[in-house]
C-alpha cells in the first residue's frame, strides 16, 4: 500500500496530538460502560432478589386484610371448593400505636410514633408467608425476644440487644403496665420490607404476643391477614372476583403478588431508570466527542491527507486506520468500565442485598453488563465510520494548495461585533464573533453543556417535586394542613364524630369528609374489576387531573391512571359500578383521570353518595384558619385520637414517598457529580482542541502584543456564553421533556404527567453557579500556555 508508513504516522500523531481527547474518550466510554453494567446489575439483581425473596418467604398470591372477626368455617369451605386455592391461612396481627412502642439501648431511645407506619405484632406463620432472618432462615423467636423489620434498623439505627418496651393504658389486675422484649435480630418481610408498604410486622413468640395483647388491652387492634397461595398465580384476577362474590370478609385493602413485587422493587426501579438515563446521555456525549475530535483532526491534517491521497492512498485505507485506533480506545474504555462496574453496583445493590438477600443472578448481571459494554463499543465504531466520511470530502488539490479545505468558507463577523465599531472592546468582540463564525464547531460543546445541565437539573427537580407539599396532588389527595385517616376497623361512627368536631373547631377554616367504599365493575375485556371509590366534596381540596376534570355532578366518575387502564376506560366512557352484595348500581361517566401512587395506584372518585355499604376507609382533610399553627392543630388531634393516623401534608408525603425521596436525593448528588465531571471534561477537551486548531491565530495575536490573559479571556468568554445558553436550554428541557420522561419512568407506580417543581434557589442559582465555577476553573487551567510554548515555534509550524 503506498504511503503505509506515513499513514500510520499520521494517525498515530493525530492521537498523540489530541492525547487529552483520547483520554477523555476512554473516560466517557469507561463511565458509560460502568453505569450500564451497574444498571444491568441493579435491574437483573433487584428483580431477581425480589422474586427470590418472595419464593423463599412463600409470599401469598392474594392477601385480604380485615378488621373484625373472621368466620373460619365459611373461609375453609370456600377454600375447600375453590380449585385455585393451594393453601390458605387467617393470621391475626396485633396493631399497636407507635407511641406505645419504645426502643432503647446504647445510643438509642426512640418510639415508633414518628414512623407513620402501622406497627403490628405477629407470630411466625406455619406454612407460608415466612418472616426470614438476614440468612434467609425462617425465624423462630425465643420467648422474651422480638425481631424488628430491617427497615427500622436502617431508619432508626437499631442493634441487636436493644430493648423494646410496649406500654399499655395502665396496670390492672392481670394486666402488666409494660411488656419488655429484647431485640434478637432483624427480619426480612417479603410483604412489608419497603417504605412504600405502610405497615410493618414485629415478630414475637406466641406467648409474648399474648402478653403484649394483655398490656395494650383495648388500645390495640386485631387485624386479620386472610392469605391465599394459588395453584395458578396468574389467575389471581379471577380469584379476586370469586372471593368478592362469595361475600367473604373484606374489611380492608387487598394486595396481590404483583403489587408486592412492585412495592419491593420500586426504589431500585427508579434508581435504575435514572442510571439508564445517565448512561444513554454519556454514550451520546462519547459519540459527540468522537465526532468532534475526528473532525478537528481531519481539519488539521488536511495537507497530509491531501498528500497521501495524491500519492494514491485510498480513502478506505485511511478510514481503516483511523477506525482501528479509535476502536482500540473504545475497547480500552469499555474494559475499564466493565472492571469498575462491580464497585458501583456493589454500593447500589447494598440495600437490595440487605433487604432481600442474594438474587442468584450475579452471573446474568455480569453478562448483561458485558453485552451492553460491547454495544457501546459498536456504537462508537459506527459513529467513527460515519464521521470519517469527511475524509472523502478532502480534495487533494485544495488541501495541497491552501492547507485547508475551509479557506473559502469563512463567515463574516456581524457588524455589531466589528472591532472597529469598538462597542464591546476587542476581547469581547473577538470572543463572541467566533461563535457566529464557526457555529458547527461550537454546537457540539453547546449540546453537551445542555445535556450536562439537564442531567444536573432533572433529578434535583424530581427530588424537589417529590418533597414539595403540592406533590400530594399527584397521589390522589388534595393539599390540606391536616389529614386524618380512619380505617374501616375503627368505629364507623368515628368519621361522623370527627366531621362534627372539625365543623365546630374555631381553629379549622374548612374541612371535608371523603369516604371510600367498595364496588365492582365490568372492564372493557369483560372481566370483573374491583373499584375503591372515594365520595365526598372533591372540590374543596382538589387534586391535579392528567386528563379531563374533576367530577362535579352525581353521574360523573374520575379514575386513577392504573384503574383506568385496568378498566380499559377513557374520559367519556360509561362505567356502571355495582355495590358488592347487592344494592343500587350507579351508571357513571368517566370525566377525569388522575395520578395516584397510593392503594396500589387503583382508586376512583365521585361526588354521588355511596350506595355500597362496604366502607373501606374514611379520610378527613382540613385547613386551619389563618394565624393558627397547623402543627399544633395536628398535634392536638393526634393526641385526642391515638388510634387514628393524624398527619400533616409533610408527614404524609414523607411517609409515602420518603424512600423515593432518599433515592432521588442520592441520584441528585450522583448526577451533580456526573454533570460537573462531564462539563469539566468537555471544557478541557474542547479548549485543547480549539487551541490546537487555532495555534496560528493565537501566535499571531501574541506577536501583535495580546497578553496571554487577554487571549484566554476570549476563549473563556465563548465557553461561558456557551455554558449559559446550555444551562438555559438544559433547564427548559428539564422542565418540559424531563417531566415527560419522569412521568414515563414513574407510570409503573401510577404517576403520569408529572409537572416538575423546581427549587428556584437550587435550579436557577446554585446549580448554574457551581457549573459556571467548574467550567471557569477548567477553562482557566486548560488554556494556560505550556512553559515551552513559544510564539515563534508556533508561527513556524
Amino acid at each position, binding site marked *: 500500500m503506498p504511503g503505509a508508513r506515513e499513514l500510520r504516522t499520521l494517525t498515530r500523531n493525530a492521537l498523540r496530538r489530541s492525547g487529552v481527547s483520547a483520554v477523555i474518550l476512554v473516560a466517557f466510554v469507561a463511565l458509560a460502560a460502568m453505569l450500564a453494567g451497574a444498571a444491568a446489575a441493579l435491574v437483573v439483581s433487584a428483580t431477581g432478589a425480589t422474586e427470590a425473596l418472595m419464593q423463599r418467604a412463600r409470599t401469598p398470591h392474594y392477601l385480604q386484610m380485615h378488621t373484625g372477626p373472621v368466620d373460619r368455617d365459611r373461609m375453609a369451605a370456600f377454600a375447600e371448593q375453590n380449585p385455585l386455592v393451594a393453601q390458605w391461612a387467617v393470621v391475626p396481627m396485633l396493631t399497636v400505636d407507635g407511641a406505645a412502642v419504645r426502643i432503647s439501648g446504647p445510643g438509642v431511645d426512640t418510639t415508633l410514633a414518628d414512623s407513620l407506619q402501622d406497627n403490628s405484632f405477629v407470630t411466625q406463620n406455619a406454612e407460608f408467608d415466612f418472616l426470614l432472618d438476614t440468612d434467609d432462615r425462617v425465624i423462630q423467636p425465643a420467648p422474651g425476644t422480638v425481631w424488628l423489620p430491617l427497615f427500622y434498623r436502617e431508619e432508626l439505627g437499631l442493634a441487636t440487644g436493644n430493648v423494646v418496651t410496649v406500654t399499655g393504658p395502665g396496670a390492672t389486675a392481670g394486666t402488666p403496665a409494660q411488656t419488655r422484649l429484647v431485640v434478637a435480630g432483624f427480619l426480612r418481610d417479603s410483604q412489608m420490607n419497603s417504605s412504600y408498604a405502610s405497615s410493618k410486622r414485629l415478630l414475637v413468640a406466641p406467648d409474648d404476643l399474648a402478653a403484649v395483647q394483655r398490656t395494650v388491652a383495648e388500645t390495640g387492634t386485631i387485624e386479620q391477614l386472610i392469605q391465599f397461595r394459588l395453584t395458578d398465580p396468574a389467575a389471581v384476577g379471577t380469584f379476586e372476583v370469586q372471593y368478592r362474590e362469595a361475600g367473604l370478609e373484606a374489611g380492608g385493602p387487598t394486595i396481590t403478588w404483583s403489587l408486592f413485587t412492585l412495592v419491593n422493587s420500586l426504589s431500585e426501579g427508579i434508581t435504575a431508570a435514572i442510571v439508564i438515563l445517565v448512561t444513554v446521555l454519556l454514550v451520546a456525549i462519547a459519540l459527540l466527542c468522537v465526532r468532534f475530535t475526528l473532525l478537528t483532526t481531519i481539519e488539521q491534517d488536511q495537507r497530509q491527507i491531501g498528500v497521501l491521497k495524491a500519492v494514491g492512498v485510498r480513502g478506505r485505507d485511511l478510514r481503516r486506520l483511523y477506525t482501528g485506533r479509535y476502536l482500540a480506545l473504545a475497547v480500552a474504555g469499555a474494559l475499564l468500565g466493565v472492571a469498575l462496574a462491580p464497585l458501583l453496583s456493589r454500593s447500589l445493590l447494598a440495600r437490595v442485598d440487605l433487604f432481600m438477600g442474594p438474587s442468584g443472578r450475579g452471573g446474568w448481571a455480569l453478562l448483561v453488563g458485558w453485552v451492553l459494554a460491547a454495544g457501546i463499543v459498536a456504537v462508537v465504531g459506527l459513529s467513527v465510520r460515519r464521521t470519517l466520511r469527511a475524509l472523502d470530502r478532502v480534495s487533494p488539490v485544495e488541501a495541497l494548495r491552501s492547507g485547508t479545505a475551509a479557506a473559502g468558507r469563512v463567515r463574516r463577523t456581524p457588524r455589531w461585533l466589528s472591532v472597529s465599531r469598538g462597542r464591546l472592546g476587542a476581547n469581547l468582540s473577538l470572543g463572541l464573533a467566533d461563535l457566529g463564525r464557526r457555529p458547527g464547531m461550537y454546537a457540539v460543546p453547546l449540546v453537551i453543556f445542555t445535556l450536562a445541565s439537564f442531567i444536573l437539573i432533572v433529578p434535583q427537580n424530581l427530588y424537589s417535586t417529590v418533597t414539595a407539599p403540592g406533590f400530594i396532588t399527584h397521589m390522589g389527595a388534595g393539599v390540606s394542613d391536616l389529614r386524618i385517616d380512619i380505617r374501616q376497623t375503627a368505629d364507623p361512627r368515628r368519621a361522623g364524630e370527627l366531621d362534627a368536631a372539625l365543623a365546630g373547631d374555631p381553629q379549622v377554616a374548612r374541612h371535608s369528609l371523603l369516604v371510600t367504599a367498595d364496588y365492582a365493575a365490568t372492564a372493557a375485556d369483560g372481566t370483573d374489576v374491583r373499584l375503591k371509590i372515594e365520595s365526598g366534596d372533591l372540590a374543596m381540596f382538589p387534586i391535579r387531573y392528567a386528563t379531563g376534570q374533576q367530577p362535579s355532578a352525581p353521574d360523573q366518575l374520575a379514575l386513577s391512571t392504573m384503574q383506568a387502564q385496568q378498566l380499559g376506560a377513557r374520559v367519556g366512557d360509561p362505567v356502571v359500578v355495582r355495590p358488592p352484595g347487592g344494592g343500587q348500581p350507579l351508571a357513571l361517566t368517566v370525566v377525569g383521570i388522575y395520578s395516584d401512587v397510593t392503594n396500589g395506584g387503583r382508586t376512583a372518585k365521585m361526588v354521588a353518595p355511596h350506595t355500597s355499604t362496604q366502607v373501606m376507609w374514611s379520610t378527613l382533610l382540613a385547613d386551619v384558619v389563618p394565624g393558627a399553627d397547623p402543627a399544633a392543630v395536628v398535634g392536638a388531634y393526634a393526641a385526642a385520637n391515638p388510634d387514628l393516623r393524624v398527619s400533616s401534608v409533610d408527614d404524609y408525603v414523607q411517609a409515602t414517598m420518603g424512600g423515593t425521596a432518599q433515592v432521588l436525593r442520592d441520584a441528585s448528588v450522583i448526577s451533580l457529580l456526573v454533570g460537573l465531571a462531564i462539563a469539566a471534561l468537555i471544557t478541557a477537551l474542547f479548549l485543547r482542541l480549539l487551541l490546537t486548531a487555532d495555534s496560528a491565530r493565537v501566535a499571531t495575536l501574541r*506577536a501583535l502584543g495580546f*497578553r496571554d490573559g487577554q487571549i484566554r479571556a476570549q476563549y473563556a468568554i465563548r465557553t461561558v456564553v456557551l455554558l449559559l445558553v446550555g444551562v438555559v436550554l438544559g433547564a427548559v428541557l428539564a422542565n418540559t421533556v424531563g417531566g415527560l420522561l419522569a412521568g414515563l419512568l414513574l407510570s409503573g407506580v401510577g404517576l403520569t404527567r408529572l409537572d416538575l417543581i423546581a427549587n428556584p434557589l437550587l435550579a436557577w442559582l446554585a446549580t448554574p453557579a457551581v457549573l459556571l465555577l467548574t467550567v471557569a476553573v477548567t477553562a482557566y487551567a486548560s488554556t494556560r500556555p505550556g512553559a515551552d510554548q513559544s510564539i*515563534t515555534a508556533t508561527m513556524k509550524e
Partner: protein
Amino acid sequence: MDKLSTAERTEQPGPAERTGPAPALVATGIRKAYGDTEILHGIDLTVAEGEFVAVMGPSGSGKSTLLHCLAGLDRVDAGSVRLAGIELTGLSADELADRRRELMGFVFQQPTLLRDLTLLDNIVLTGALDRIGTPAERTAHAEALMARAGIAELRDRMPGEVSGGQLQRAGVCRALQRDPRIVYGDEPTGALNSSAAREVMDLLVEFNRDGTTLVVVTHDAAVAARAHRVVFLRDGAVAEELLLGGQPAERVTDVVDAMRAVGV
C-alpha cells in the same frame, strides 16, 4: 568580523543626520540556543532612530532568530536588548506583550491577518484593545493609512477576498497603525511576486522616510538594497556590515557583491 565596509557617500540622508545620535535599538552580546545548538553567538547591533537596517545571511545563519529576539518574541539566553531606552530581556511575558503593542510593528512573510475580521478590523485591532482614541478616530487613522497603501476601497473586505500583495499592504498598515518606534519585517516580500513585492517595499520605504525605524530580514538583494545599512550574518554572528549609498542599480550591485563575499 564586524568589519565595516567602505562607507560610500549616500544620496539619501543618513539616519544619524536626520535624528541625531540617539539609537532606537541597542542589542549587545545576544546569545540564543535551541537545545544544545547555539544559534546566536553574541551579536551586537545598534539601530539609529529612523534607520532602515536589512539583515541578510544564508539559511540557518540566525536571521529570523535574531529578529525574534530583538522583538521580544523569543527570549535571549544572554545579552541585552534595549528598545527606546527600555531593557526587554528582564520583562515578563505580559510586559513584553504590552511593549510589542506600544512600541513595535510587525510584517511577517505570510500575511497573518485574522481570517474572520475585515481588513479594517485587522488594522485597528490592537488600538481597539487598548482603546486608543475613539472608534471613529481609530477608523479615520486606519483609513488614512489604507489610502496611502492604495487599499482604501478594500476596508470591508475579508482577507480571503483580496490578493497576496493587498493583504501584505494591509499587514504594513496594521504594523503602522499605532505609530510604533520600530517596525520589524520578517521576509515581508518573501511570499509575493516581484511587482507586489516592490509595492510593499515602496510603502515601507515611504514610511521610513517619514521617520519610522525599520529592521527587515530578507533574502532578496533588491529589498536589502533599499536599506541604509545591511548586516550580514553567518553561523550566528555578524560577518559583515555594508553601508549603502548611490543609485539604486549600484546599491543592488554592492549588496550582491557583499553577499558573494560573505558567502550568502
